[in-house]
């Protein structure tokens, strides 16, 4: 990093800054469950797991994070701000006509955003393709994709579970933020679906940073990894 960019880089912020950054978007201290269910997973990924930062956002060998569940992206924008990808000044006017920050993120508009999401069931299949592409180019970087438990309703995800398991894509990690929001929810059933297709699975407390870090950094040779991060039930 050059001295100039070091001087221009915004100050690094901590986990404790995230509620304030989110309140810049919500206008108060209350945040929707959909936005906050992902907060700890996102923070641990960008703070402890992913090898990517504002200075390496275009590096072909960077780790990729795909937010497949594009709904409620306030926590995502807050973490990207805290990590210096986007300026804090963007947050208050989010979702306005001139803002690059929408209710669903757009990779063309937001530095550090790797995929444009919003329609459910696309990010995970995209991540399978990217994992294949990194592997074909001999790159050792990883792809981590975040889906919601209700997002797994979409059948396209199950096509991806099967193929990634069959091909043994060990550079792919799916993190399922499980707040029990799927209408036809069978508690505890998610990990088993992945294991059945040959995945390595871990079920952790989605608020426990140490447990999340351990699960999200695991890389099992020849098998993709799923981390089910359990958080408070959305409708409880």
């Amino acid at each position: 990093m050059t001295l100039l960019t070091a001087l221009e880089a915004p100050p690094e912020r901590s986990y404790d800054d995230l509620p304030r950054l989110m309140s810049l978007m919500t206008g108060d201290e209350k945040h929707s469950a959909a936005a906050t269910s992902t907060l700890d997973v996102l923070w641990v990924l960008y703070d402890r797991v992913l090898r990517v930062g504002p200075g390496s956002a275009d590096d072909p060998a960077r780790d990729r994070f795909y937010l497949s569940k594009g709904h409620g992206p306030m926590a995502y924008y807050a973490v990207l701000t805290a990590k210096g990808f986007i300026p804090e000044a963007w947050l208050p006017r989010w979702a306005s006509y001139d803002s690059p920050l929408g209710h669903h993120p757009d990779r063309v508009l937001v530095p550090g955003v790797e995929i444009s999401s919003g329609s459910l069931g696309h990010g995970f299949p995209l991540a399978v393709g990217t994992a294949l592409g990194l592997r074909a180019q001999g790159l050792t970087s990883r792809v981590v994709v975040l889906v919601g438990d209700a997002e797994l309703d979409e059948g396209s995800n199950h096509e991806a579970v099967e193929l990634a398991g069959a091909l043994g894509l060990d550079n792919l990690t799916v993190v399922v933020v499980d707040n029990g929001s799927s209408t036809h929810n069978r508690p505890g059933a998610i990990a088993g679906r992945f294991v059945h297709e040959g995945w390595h699975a871990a079920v952790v407390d989605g608020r426990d940073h140490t447990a999340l870090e351990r699960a999200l950094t695991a890389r099992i040779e020849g098998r993709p990894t799923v981390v089910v991060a359990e958080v408070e039930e959305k409708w409880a």
Partner: protein
Amino acid sequence: MSDPRQRFAQTAADLVEEDLSVALVYAEISGQYFGDVESRHPDRVVNVGIREQLLVNVGAGLALAGMRPIVHTFGSFLVERAFEQIKLGFGHQDVGGVLVGSGGSFDIASGGRTHQAPGDVPLMDTLPGWTLHVPGHADEVEDSLRLAVAGDGREYVRVVSQQNAQAFPVRPGRFHVLRRGSGATVVAVGPTLDAVLEATRGRDVSVLYANVVRPFDSRTLRAVLASPEVVLVEPYLAGTSSRLVADALSDVPHRLLALGVRSEEIRRYGTARQHVAAHGLDAAGIRRSLDAFLVGRGDGIAS
């Protein structure tokens, strides 16, 4: 003349061999042609199984990783079944890729409606920025694919069995002027050309040939236009290019006849040739339509 689909498969395999950035993703279909290249390059030739939503997004995900994907299955499953994946995986992510749909409107006539996709090109035409290749000859299939893969844009290549006697160069954005006349201008798209040439024999009309239909070459259409009558002959849904003609001639009072596949489901099996005739796209059908459209005009049948 070689078979267009086999030529596609051979060219795709050659491109995988020639260029390390090229990946071929398919969903069982045409797998009989890909065995050799898949065994040599299992990292860049991937059969995803019968999973078309995944097929398209795996292609887009490869593009996000910096590769140039060729994504292939029948046009019906590629464009119609996985349309949102095409819209969001490529255009919305702002990455490029080459989609190759085979089968077209009636290659698999005996398979019935499930395997007939006259809506592939019109659906793709709702998305901005795609180059739409409609090759009418195996040589054009190879040229389109090589040109498409060499670039970085979004390209759809429609590969069908029916082909014309002669191949023409592939030049996106430029139609070929095959005949100049003083009457109507007939635009033949892809494999309809031979029937158009036969149907217009002896008529004082101009004939343009389009083996790439988007971008639409409005400039050549205007330059050639002798009388204010345009006839489109397209091998997918009739009228797909009508709005482009309307835009090109917005300042010219004109008449348009748009021939192509009719939208109603005819519920017939049989052969592609029979379906071409049923939709009035054989030479006799095109001639009948021209006679009715140009009745009383000075550019009627000569002699």
